[in-house]
Every structure is written in structure tokens, then in C-alpha cells.
């Protein structure tokens, strides 16, 4: 039986910054429950003696000389900005009225 509840999906949506509708929360609760049930089997074989692999090809740190490389112009940086003013990004208020 799955532990995915509407409350958990609502919490995950808030962590993910997605304003899900009530319908989406309902359908995701069902779908995620099924998906989690089917993928939980990974723990069957993941015993303590098996090391984890995060990256398929072992490489040591890729470093470069600490010099200025290719950079973008201010115009390029701002070319896709949803809103801009005086060469800067315009952002909505960070703090709400209660904060």
C-alpha cells in the first residue's frame, strides 16, 4: 500500500514551486502511488555491501586555468529576460506583506 497522500503531494508541490490545481493533486496522488509501488523494488537488491554509482564513467575533477574565458555581454544576458530595466532583471517583490 502506498504512502503517497494528497497532503504529501501538496507538500512536494510547494517544495517544487508548482502551484498544482486540486485536480492535479488528486491524479498525481494516484499515479505517484502506482509508480512508487513499482520502483520501490530497487531496495530488494541494494544491500549494504554494494557501493553507489553516481556517474557512469569515473573521471577526476576537470579543472582549467583560472583565467577569464568566453563571457556573454550584458545585452546577451538580458536578451531573454521576462522583464528588465536599466540593464538589470526586474524581479517581483521578495517579501510579502506579512514578512
Amino acid at each position, binding site marked *: 500500500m502506498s504512502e503517497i497522500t494528497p497532503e504529501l503531494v501538496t507538500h512536494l508541490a510547494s517544495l517544487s*514551486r508548482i502551484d498544482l490545481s486540486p485536480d492535479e493533486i488528486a491524479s498525481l496522488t494516484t499515479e505517484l502511488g502506482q509508480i512508487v509501488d513499482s520502483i520501490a523494488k530497487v531496495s530488494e537488491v541494494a544491500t549494504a555491501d554494494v557501493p553507489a554509482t553516481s556517474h557512469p564513467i569515473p573521471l577526476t575533477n576537470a579543472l582549467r586555468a583560472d583565467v577569464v574565458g568566453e563571457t556573454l555581454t550584458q545585452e546577451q544576458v538580458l536578451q531573454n529576460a521576462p522583464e528588465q530595466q536599466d540593464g538589470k532583471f526586474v524581479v517581483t517583490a521578495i517579501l510579502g506583506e506579512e514578512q
Partner: protein
Amino acid sequence: MSDLIRLSAAELAAKLSAGEVSAVEATQAHLDRIAAVDGDVHAFLHVSDSALETARGIDERRAAGEQLHELAGVPLAVKDVLVTTDMPSTSGSKILEGYMSPFDATVVERARAAGLIAIGKTNMDEFAMGSSTEHSAYGPTHNPWDLSRIPGGSGGGSAAAVAAFEAPLALGSDTGGSIRQPAHVTGTVGVKPTYGGVSRYGSIALASSLDQIGPVTRTVLDAALLHDVIGGHDARDSTSIPESWVSMAAAAREGQSGEVLKGLRVGVVKQFSGEGFQAGVEQRFAETLTLLQGAGAEIVEIDAPHFEYAVAAYYLILPAEASSNLARYDSVRFGLRVHPQGGGTVEDVMAATREAGFGPEVKRRIILGTYALSSGYYDAYYGSAQKVRTLIQRDFNAAFDQVDVIASPSAPTTAFKIGERVNDPLSMYLNDITTIPANLAGVPGISIPMGLAPEDGLPTGLQLMAPVRADDRLYRVAAAIEARLEEGWGHTLISQAPALGGK
């Protein structure tokens, strides 16, 4: 139909360098084809308005006696996951609608440097999440073999573009099969190189430890030629392997004689058969193995006990990495910005933007990945999935102690109907059972046409996998098998695809 579009890239390139055809003519022929059939196929999200001008430049340089790359003047379709300076790059998402990159992806930059003509951007599942291209925010692509069916995914646009003769070459990305499975269902060739063999710089990230860019073509040699153009170390991708590679095209040409099949040890994974596998796919696979034996290859059964956990591990690792990578779509510096009703803080704007800008599959995977990474669940899910990854690598290592290549059907079934599985994520995920292990282990894989399934007349693909860094072996063996199969059929498989556009 113009004969130019029917040529392989290698054949077209030969005509271009012999001066029999100009780059403008080659480009115009493909633009005409797109205009004639893409209304039905919908392989492209954007068609270049500067391709002819670029082609003219190639013709002028060639006329001036400049020594150009052998593929110079050949048109190329680019999956929309790769950023381009001259065309929008959306990764199939509304959240990036109209996005114009200030730089080219390394693979695009290298393709342009070789004189390839970027003719358009191809459709894909949103952020490459899907196996059918139905999750594109811009509508599905249709399979040129049967327009009511899916062209595979996520790179259905690139596969359909080459299958429909809209381009001889295309670029794709393969995170769990997004190049190989579309090749399977469209009767084309697709390669996922060794992880780190081709730069990911400028590829809009899905799951960084799994994503790999590769060629999408109609012949093995064409894929090898394109691989040589895009491959090799790139200092801008810190996961790029800092080594040099042999020529894949040389390997493919060498393989065409079939000599490589004598004494070749071919592994067949016993876990890749039975339940879920369509009879006609299994039949064509068995026939291909018989053909290989006839050519002197030895078939060895391989036990890969952990492959059955691969899909589960993948659907933990991919969402986990994706939930982190997709956090950048926050409405601040680029992309969509939606203001919630009644206003709000930047956090409210982010949540409203992501609600409006992401499609259902993307939301599903972000939420799943956020769950898998949550404190209290991390060890059980993400940690376990990373251990499964080790076990799958060990299965591959044990197999490659016994065999030179591993063979399997590239996907369990032929193309399904558009709409058939779109509301059933689990059945969609199981479609990738044969392709996912290679991504988890980083090994290279190729899919080549293996014949039409008798029951539905739709294409099937043969997948070959080789050890890490042995991409050239794949091209050598695949070119040999392709030549043998086509000799038996008396034609290429793609020549059997139905005419499009009523012509």
C-alpha cells in the same frame, strides 16, 4: 519526389564534393520536402530561414577552391533540446517558448564548422521526458510509416525527419533510449555514444548523469560520419572524456565487408524476451541471430540478473536529477513569467509560472524526484537506485568478459497508436526496458533496422551494445549486419516506407 532527398548523407556528400549538386540545391530540396509533408508528420518545431544563405556560403567557398569537410553542404535537423543562436530552443516546453540562446551547443558549433546546414529544430517530448513525443507542448509528431502512430520519443521529431526524407542527418539526445527507441519504430539508425564521448554543452539538461547526444540517420555509415563531426573532448563539458577517438566512419566502412562477423561473440540477454515482447519483434530478432550465425558469429546467452531493476532505478535517478536541473525555470532571468491573480511574491510568481509552463509529465517527474530526494526517503530510493546502477555495471562487465557485443530488440513492440498509452505512465515507462541499462552503465548502443514485424508491417530495430569507449566496434558490427540484412531483403528497409503527402 526529388532524388536528392532519397540519397544517404554519404552519397549526397559525394555529389556535393564532385560538384554535381550544389549545397543550395540540396538544401532547397529538403526545404521543399518539409513544406510538402511536415504538415502531416510535424517533425519540425521551427524551420530555418537562413539555411539557404548558409548553403550559398558553402557553395561559394567550394567554388573558391577551399578544402571543405566531406559533409559540407549536407542538411542537418537539430533536436530542440540543443541550443542554437539562429533558431529558438524550447526543449518542447511552453516555459521556454521563443527562447533564443546566446551561444550554440558544442555539437551544433562543430556541425556548422564542418559545413553542415542546420535546416530546423525537431519536435520532442517536453524536456525529453517521454517515449512517444506526445508530451511535446507543441503537439505530437506522427510516424511516417503510419501517421496514426507514435514516432517514438523523446526524439520522435529527429527520427521522423530522417524517416520522412526531410533531412538525411539529425541530432538527438538519449537519456534512457530517446535516440534508439525512435530509430526502432521509424526504421532508421540511431546511436547513443559512450557517456562523455560527445559533449553535452548546450544540451538543455534532463538528467546529467544519463544524457548523451548522438546521431540520427538512415544508414550506419551516415551515423558514423556525423559522430566523427560531433564527438571528442570538449573542455566546456566537465564530464567529457579527455581522450582521442578513432574514426567511426573508418570503422563503419571497414565493417561493410562483413569480415568482422566471423568469430564475433554476440551476447543475448535472457531477461530481454518473453512477457511484453511482441511476437513479430522476437521473430525478426531470432532471424537476425540466425543470419549472424550463418556469417560466422557465435551466439552466447547472457545472464544479467539486475537488468530487471533498471527501469525502477532509472525512474528514481532521472526524476531526482531532473527535479534539480529544472529548478532553473524560475521565471527570473529567462523563460515564461506568469503573475498569479491578485499578485504575490517572487515565490508565488515562480509557482504560478511553473504550473502554467510545465506539462503533466514534467510535473509528474519533478514531484517524483522531489519525493525521492526528500529527507527520510533518500537512502531507500535514490541511494538504492545508485546501488542498482553499480550492479547493472557489474552485469555488463561480466557479460563483456564473455562477448564482444550484446544484441537485443531495441524496444519490446512496434510503434503504438497515438493516445494509446499517454495516460498510463507506467506502461509508457516499461517501453524503455531494453534501452535504459546502457544509460545507467554509460555504455554505447546503436539501433539499426531489423525488418518489418509480420503482424503489423511496422519497423523493428536491432540494438547492439558494446563496452564503454568501444563505439567503433558498434559501427563496425552494425555496418556488417546492415549490409547482410539489406542483401537478404534486396533493398533498404526505409525504401519500403509509404509515400507521404499524396505524392
